[in-house]
């Protein structure tokens, strides 16, 4: 075979292997996406039965005042997360992030157990007391309870 043909053959081989490689990578990606995309829901979404027990997802909302307490094992923390309309009970075994406080917006990742309690594997917070995760804002907008800054509650 002359050089040009050899060159063409070389190019074809490389291209073919590249396609196979990307094909493998793509199938890995699609396969991984199926099981590992984590959706975000607010308490109202849960009340509307959009989530099934055992499904890994992220929950966002405001920590309800007066709801934070320790379970009997002295380690697990129980608290409620709400969006102004509905509440979900959350249980978390671990050390809460430093700026976790009643009335604060938080995002937690975990699953609903059969009793409807959200068992959190992670509780996420950013390090700024004014932080309200945008996901929480949108969940509250969906539930109709979001107030913009400046919309001061008139004479409630």
């Amino acid at each position, binding site marked *: 075979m002359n050089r040009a043909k050899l060159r063409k053959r070389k190019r074809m081989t490389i291209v073919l292997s590249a396609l196979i490689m990307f094909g493998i990578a793509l199938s890995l*990606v699609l396969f*991984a996406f199926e099981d590992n*995309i984590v959706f*975000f829901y607010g308490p109202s979404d849960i009340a509307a039965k959009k989530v099934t027990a055992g499904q890994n997802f992220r929950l966002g909302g405001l920590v309800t005042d007066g709801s934070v307490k320790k379970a009997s094992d002295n*380690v697990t923390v129980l608290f409620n997360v709400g969006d102004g309309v509905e509440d979900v009970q959350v249980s978390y075994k671990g*050390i809460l992030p*430093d*700026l976790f406080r009643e009335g604060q917006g938080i995002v937690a990742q975990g699953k609903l157990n059969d009793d409807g309690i959200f068992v959190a594997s992670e509780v996420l917070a950013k390090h700024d007391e004014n932080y309200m995760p945008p996901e929480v804002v949108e969940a509250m907008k969906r539930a109709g309870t979001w107030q913009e800054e400046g919309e001061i509650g008139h004479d409630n």
Partner: protein
Amino acid sequence: MTPELGHYALILALFVAFFQSTIPMWGAARNNIYAMNFAGHAAMAQFLCLLVAFASLTQAFVTSDFSVANVVANSHSLQPVLYKVSAVWGNHEGSLLLWVVILAGFGALVHFFGGNLPPNLKSRTLAVQAMIAVGFLLFLLLTSNPFARLDPAPFEGRSLNPLLQDPGLAFHPPMLYIGYVGLSIAYSFAVAALIEGKVDAAWARWVRPWTLLAWSFLTAGIMLGSWWAYYELGWGGFWYWDPVENASFMPWLVATALLHSAIVVEKRDTLKTWTILLAIIAFSLSLIGTFLVRSGILTSVHAFANDPERGVFILLLLVVAIGGSLTLYAWRAPQLKGGGLFRPISREGGLILNNLLLTSACATVFLGTLYPLFVEVLGGDRVSVGAPYFNATFVPLIIPLLLALVVGPKLAWKRGDIWAAMAGLRLAFFITVIISLGVGILIWQKSAVAIIGLSIALLMMLNSVGDIYTRAGFRKSGFIKGLKRLIRLPRAFWGMTLAHLGVAFLVAGATGATLLTYEKIVALKPGQVTQLSYFNIRFDGANDVTGPNYTALRGHYSAISNDGEIIAKFTPERRRYVGGGQETTEAGIKSTFWDDIYVVIGDRGEDGSYVARLYHKPLAPWLWWGSFLMVSGGFISLSDRSLRVGAPKRIGDNAVIKNKIRNA
């Protein structure tokens, strides 16, 4: 007074950069030696201006000049000096200033060390470098001025985010930026080569050392960030697959591929169009990373300033820099002449496999990082993509890569013998199987998958040792002569071997730290003991302490072996800082060569007990040893003279051009 000087220097740099980007480019097209030489001098001038600007901002921080808004937002008079300095780059505006300083610094280095670069290539490269500078300087001056003033000046600053007040994190950004920005040189070289229409072995020789320099710093920067997250944040992990982390990892993957493909261009004068594309993509990923982190488009636990308006400006920069270079590529790449031929089973083939696996891995990380954005834009729900996705896609691609790393270098160029190559591994393979069986029996209940990671790491280590043994010729010439030859082996060889060995340690460390960890969350009263893996942890009490700019709750813990011996003592803290009032966690860690014991203290319960998080992480320190070896390997390679002495200049280049001018 000095902030004004700094501001002025910044504007001056912009003008210099503008001329640096135009005059030499024209000069290269017209073969005008004076215009071309202008590039080098302009590069030095630009660097000097930016040094002045940077020094002026640093001075404002160190003297706590609260008339500068940036100082107010990020510093405090009680802040330790180290953190007053690191606060200079611990914010959006200051870090961008650091970016352009480093960009100009690299340009100056090219001028300084690039004496034997052909003038056309050098001038075009520096011109492209200056174009990037113009873009970023405009961004700084128009949207993110670090020298903005406040009148009247406040008495005190808000203080630097205490999370950033840590030695590891003080140095993480500069290292990272030298890495990110260093890749701009490869990019500039690539664009210059496309304009010139020529890529040859000489070009590859110029590009390799710069890429190696950037890669080494990038590795160090990523490692520092990861190390910091592990030691400071106290969540027990070292890599979260957070978008900001991925933004630094993607250029790293492509830069690694580039390092390897440039070898093929240099040795065999082939894979040129692919290597040019990699050089463009590597820096493009740096730019995209900058965009993702600063535009507010992705939520992340550590995103910078969230400002969509700034995002539009950066996007414009991206379109010009990446779109422009890719257009140039689409137009000129097909004209580059093809090079040497080789069979699929050969060292070239091995390196191509390396490249394909690395770029596929980068592509999967890219998809995972941007998927939430895609879904959102298409009107879907908010989703997040976490570690499980990345582990499921990245790990299966890395395993064949590691195996290729072991076999590949043993193949000959052009046409390799795979059986001979694998035969060379026989002993290492045999030992690995035996040890893996032994280790497997110990750990299969904890994690069977870990055995794969550990076996591969072991094979790689044995292979490295074997390589050294063979190259030094111990078998042939005996111990003494072998030692002598060992010391005189080329640094490029040592660099490669150490770096690959580092990868092996990293793999082992990652396997241990993720799959073999023991974790326990308990509430302990003073005096109480609890078991953790094969030893015990006792809580000795907690008390309040005060630091220079914080107050803290400090816990005291002891690790006690089953025989009653005290293995270690820990003092984890939860600190609250003045000024901003933020709280941080300091973990108590005991590191040995083989493992880490890690204690984090939590809240006080009503019964006087304190929550604590306890970890035992076997092999975790190998993450850092491995990274350190990789970085060292990179620098050792860099010090090899053959890498820096490029192809000899064609005699009479300058003379020919001067003659043309004289006779014109």
